[in-house]
């Protein structure tokens, strides 16, 4: 297919959309969260209901990706009114359809957040949960059917790839990404444009693009939602990256725990290939790009780029020392670009709207938006996307609706086992890379777990240390033995058997493991411990039995 054919298809789809016979659209969330709550049955029942009422020519039912408030699922959204119903089950579908489509009046008691807000918002867009958000990476999630490429095409899909291929040189694409100042969304926050430029500069006939979808952080599920809700966006980002750095092969490494994401991504590849948007001579140009899915097999350390490469090569996912960096010598020794799912999802808006537009969102040092997965003791758990620099208070109280049961906020854990805790006195911290690092935490992939006073911080530190101990690959000594030792010491503190010596040793070990470990897993494993020690030291000291006993040397 060439460029003209694509335009014809988009035009045909768009006119079909404009002269739409459908007066209503009903989006039913078919993200993994809502499916677990039974949204597939709801959709079936809904379609039946519409058919029996003879409305099938007026109403279109669309299965979509994640809409956001996951713990209120299954969710059902009526367009164009933008009324969202929560916790829909088969029993109240008839009533909803009757009042929404026939009486043209929403049932307020069943609307989103009806049970927790005094008065629910009829138009969900006015609800603070959505109003405070700015969706760029998640823009089409919850609006389009992820299993239809045409839906994505109508929403400006693959326009960025088209623009890059026909109107821009690889250098210009990289310049645009650099100008956007977007930083890697996987956690470390390395400037994406710089990374692309580095790989671009290495001369090699074979280069690779890898999409890191091994989202191992417990408590984070944004990559999953992007892959499930809009796989084509990621695919397009990867293809643009391939064009920019001169690669013709891409790998998407997706966690094995996400079967739905794998299914939808594979389907997306198939559809894109059929349309000529992937494969040989994309849109009739000389550029060829192919993507293959690799399924992770359950190892947190494979989120580390060198370990991920080893895993794609079919080996034990053990990291190797850097330098040389994957940009120079990655997959099979070739220059390799590795970015996170969310980073790729942000590429096409950057190309479409320009880097300058993106760089104006967020803070001067951290531009753009970030997706956070809200979980824990929070009223509205789910997936949100906010501009960088939004304060933690806004996220928890305005968007998240505060702490469950009106309890007092104690701490928020960001960055999973590599991150740290933010205590209540720092509630007004701006969520960007630097501010979080200065508090001893990290942005990480965006998991945000809220804890109230029932959470014991020493136990939380022990929990994360146990995680790191289990997930350590066992290659280097500090991580292999150090995490075990730290875990044992933390267990001792939890059991109220530790002395001051143990605490001193624990601190010494934490710094040692942080500085000497081979890879990022070991290097960040002590972070939860160090940050809880920093902000909640008295909880540790309360459990120590003998304060006087100190080490002699």
């Amino acid at each position, binding site marked *: 297919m060439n460029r003209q054919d694509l335009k014809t298809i988009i035009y045909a789809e768009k006119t079909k959309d404009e002269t739409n016979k459908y007066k209503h659209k009903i989006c039913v969330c078919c993200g993994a969260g809502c499916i677990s709550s039974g949204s597939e049955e709801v959709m079936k029942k809904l379609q039946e209901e519409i058919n029996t009422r003879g409305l099938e020519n007026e109403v279109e039912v669309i299965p979509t990706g994640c809409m956001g408030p996951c713990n209120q699922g299954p969710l059902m959204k009526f367009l164009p009114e933008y009324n969202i119903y929560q916790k829909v089950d088969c029993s109240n579908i008839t009533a909803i359809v009757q009042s929404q489509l026939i009486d043209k009046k929403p049932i307020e008691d069943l609307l989103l957040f009806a049970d927790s807000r005094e008065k629910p918002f009829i138009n969900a867009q006015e609800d603070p949960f959505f109003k405070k958000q700015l969706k760029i990476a998640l823009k089409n999630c919850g609006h389009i059917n992820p299993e239809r490429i045409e839906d994505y095409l109508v929403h400006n899909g693959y326009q960025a790839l088209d623009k890059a291929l026909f109107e821009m040189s690889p250098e210009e694409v990289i310049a645009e990404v650099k100008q956007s100042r977007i930083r890697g969304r996987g956690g470390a926050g390395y400037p994406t444009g710089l990374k692309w430029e580095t790989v671009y500069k290495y001369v090699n006939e074979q280069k690779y693009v890898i999409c890191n979808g091994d989202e191992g952080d417990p408590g984070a599920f944004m990559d999953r939602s992007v892959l499930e809700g809009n796989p084509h966006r990621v695919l397009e980002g990867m293809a643009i990256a391939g064009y920019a750095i001169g690669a013709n092969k891409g790998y998407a490494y997706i966690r094995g725990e996400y079967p739905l994401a794998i299914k939808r991504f594979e389907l997306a590849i198939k559809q894109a290939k059929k349309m000529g948007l992937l494969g040989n001579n994309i849109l009739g140009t000389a550029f060829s790009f192919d993507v293959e899915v690799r399924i992770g097999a359950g*190892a947190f*350390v494979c989120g580390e780029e060198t370990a991920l490469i080893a895993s794609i090569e079919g080996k*034990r996912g053990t990291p*190797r*020392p850097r*330098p040389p960096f994957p940009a120079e010598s990655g997959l099979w020794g070739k220059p390799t670009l590795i970015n996170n799912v969310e980073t790729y999802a942000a590429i096409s808006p950057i190309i479409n709207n320009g880097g300058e537009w993106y760089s104006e969102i967020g803070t001067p040092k951290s531009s753009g938006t970030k997706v956070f997965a809200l979980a824990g003791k929070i009223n509205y758990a789910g997936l949100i996307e906010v501009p960088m620099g939004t304060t933690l208070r806004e996220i928890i109280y305005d968007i998240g609706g505060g702490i469950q049961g009106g309890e007092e906020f104690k701490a928020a854990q960001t960055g999973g086992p590599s991150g740290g805790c933010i205590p209540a006195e720092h509630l007004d911290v701006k969520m960007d890379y630097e501010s979080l690092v200065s508090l001893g935490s990290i942005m990480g992939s965006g998991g945000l777990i809220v804890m109230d006073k029932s959470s014991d911080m020493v136990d939380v530190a022990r929990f994360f240390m146990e995680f790191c*101990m*289990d*997930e*350590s*690959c*066992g*290659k*280097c*000594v*500090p991580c*292999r*033995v*150090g*995490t*075990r*030792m730290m875990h*044992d010491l933390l267990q001792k503190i939890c059991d109220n058997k530790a002395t001051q010596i143990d605490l001193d*040793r624990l601190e*010494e*070990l934490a710094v*040692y493991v942080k*500085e*000497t*470990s*081979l890879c990022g897993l070991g290097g960040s494993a002590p972070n939860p411990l160090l940050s809880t020690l920093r902000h909640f030291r008295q909880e540790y000291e309360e459990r120590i039995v003998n304060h006087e006993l100190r*080490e002699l040397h």
Partner: protein
Amino acid sequence: MNKIPIIIDEKKLETDPGKTILEVCRENEIDILTMCHLKGVLDIGACRLCLVEIEGVNKLLSACTTKVAANMVIKTNTERIKKYQRITTELLFAERNHVCAVCVANGKCELQNLGYKVGMDHIRYPHLFPQCEVDTSHAWYVMDHNRCIMCTRCVRVCNEVEGAHNWDVMNRGHQVRIISDFNTAWGESVTCTSCGKCLHACPTGAIWPKAIVQGQLEKKPGIINELMEKRKMKL
């Protein structure tokens, strides 16, 4: 090729580019502690004993895997590095069941020497005392997992030099163990060629030949490099 200037421990040196920091240090008689490094096989940078400070780099880098660059300023013996070397050594001793007094390698053990070098008088961390097997099924050799430090020198020698790939590592984290074949007894391995190179590669008393009196064990780790050099000449 042009020589490049570097500074190691305030000593100005000139060296060829492409060499690792460890190679340059060894050439210039600057002592760097190593455990997983074995000349002749590929380096993996796993033991973290050879960490050095490099000016302008905020991370500590392993000398065995980092190549020298022009005008690098390297420090190998700061207080921080010495402290970390000692902790690493203590962790190695605490990880498995190392009892020097009854070990065949007593007196000729690289781990024991390491303990002397870093001045380790006692181990501050609790011993983990894992349950480890002693595999005596092979007719000539014994594999004692109690004394293994997971340097994987045997694995690399078996794979890269002998080409048999009898050894590998199983599990992960602190449960890693060296295995032969499908975690079968060494004696029943179908890939082992009984060449004995792993014995010489092993830095401790984990692999030792049968019929040896305690303290009589002699290991020649240098033989691996010698072999590789000879092969190169042959080619």
